[in-house]
């Protein structure tokens, strides 16, 4: 005979596994430090590409002035400024990403804890049924 309570539990778990659970399991398969490290590396790469695009647009906008002044300007000071803005941009973006991904990791762990509790519940139901039969 079909155990309705067990069926309900299994349906909920299957729905979770198909959508949210899939993502959460992928996140929770990492240690926190590994997950955060990976995301920060990705963030640094993205921030670097974004900075290069913005810098490229900025230079192209003032290209004529830039080419006229290139021999007069202090290239070391210019390079230092570019690097400083790059570091500020990358650090700020990585910090935002760190906060977002920390919350995401915490939520994934919490959500998976509920899922494992349901698994235990399911296992207990099976045991009870075995003993009865």
């Amino acid at each position, binding site marked *: 005979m079909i155990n309705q309570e067990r069926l309900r539990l299994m349906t909920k778990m299957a729905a979770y596994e198909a959508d949210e659970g899939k993502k959460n399991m992928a996140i929770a398969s990492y240690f926190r430090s590994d997950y955060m490290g990976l995301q920060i590396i*990705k963030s640094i790469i*993205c*921030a670097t*590409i*974004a900075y290069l*695009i*913005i810098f*490229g*647009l900025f230079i*192209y*906008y003032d*290209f*004529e002035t830039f080419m006229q002044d290139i021999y007069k300007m202090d290239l070391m000071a210019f390079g230092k400024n570019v690097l400083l803005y790059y570091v500020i941009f990358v650090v700020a*973006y990585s910090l935002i*990403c760190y906060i*977002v*991904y920390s919350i995401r990791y915490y939520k994934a762990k919490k959500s998976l804890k509920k899922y494992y509790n349901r698994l235990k519940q399911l296992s207990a139901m099976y045991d009870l049924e075995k003993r009865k039969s």
Partner: protein
Amino acid sequence: MSALLEMREKLRDIYSKGEVYLTPLFKFLLALVVLLSINANIGYMDRIAGNIIIPLIVALMCSFLPMNFIVLFGALFVCLNSYAVSLECGIVALAAFVLMFILYFRFSSKDTIVVALLPLMFMLKIPYIIPIAVGLLCTPLSVVSVACGTVAYYLVLFIKENAQTISDLETEEAIGKFRFVIDGLLGNQEIIIVLIAFSVIVITVYVIRMLSIDHSWTIGMCVGGVLGATILLIGDLSFDTHISLLSLILGMIASLLLAVGLQFFVFNVDYSRTEYVQFEDDEYYYYVKAVPKNSVPQTKVKVKKIH
């Protein structure tokens, strides 16, 4: 009211039964409308805007792909059409979309669809529904999605309004064209005012609907709408941005009515039956406010076989 609730249940039932077919159909229609509206506004590239076959094929592809691909293909169409106007226009459009995707949408992929919906709503003169809906359904972080959608719309609008001027500039003046596009976008005060107004709407609606007060969703959308309209009006008076007063009021009323419709489907509760319960366990005291949802029992049809 009960008739409306019954209709809602029936609609839910129809959708849950035909979800496998209805979701791709909706994606297809949305993609088609987005791509055709881009082509209708800035269809300067004959290869993609000259015939309906390419948008149709792309929309068909979108119906089987995740929702975000609608935005991706929409961005691609905007870039290609901008490139047809001038290389510099194409570069600016491409840079804007790449920045949006790599800086924001990589960690907030759920909100990406706002970028496609907001320009559409702008064209229908009811853009205010999007910040209100985002405030009701998403988190305050989604304000960035609304900002991206606003920038995307004004980019398309700028290209549409200035395509002839950009084309008329000499080919040798590549930097001049580039400057014209950048100055046109960054110097547009209307974008800034709209961005501020929409951000205020999203945050106000979100903060109020999270409060533990009766009718928080309705109060939130009304206060958010009024605040947004006030900011737009003050901005218009201060910077002379040519925002039409009639269009603003009518658009806001229509948006609020749509938001009420959205609320009916997403958050329909009966405050008259609110219960306050209080209990405790080993660690906490609980003061709980329970508001029952409005629902109607579905009529069960029994088929009696008479032999």
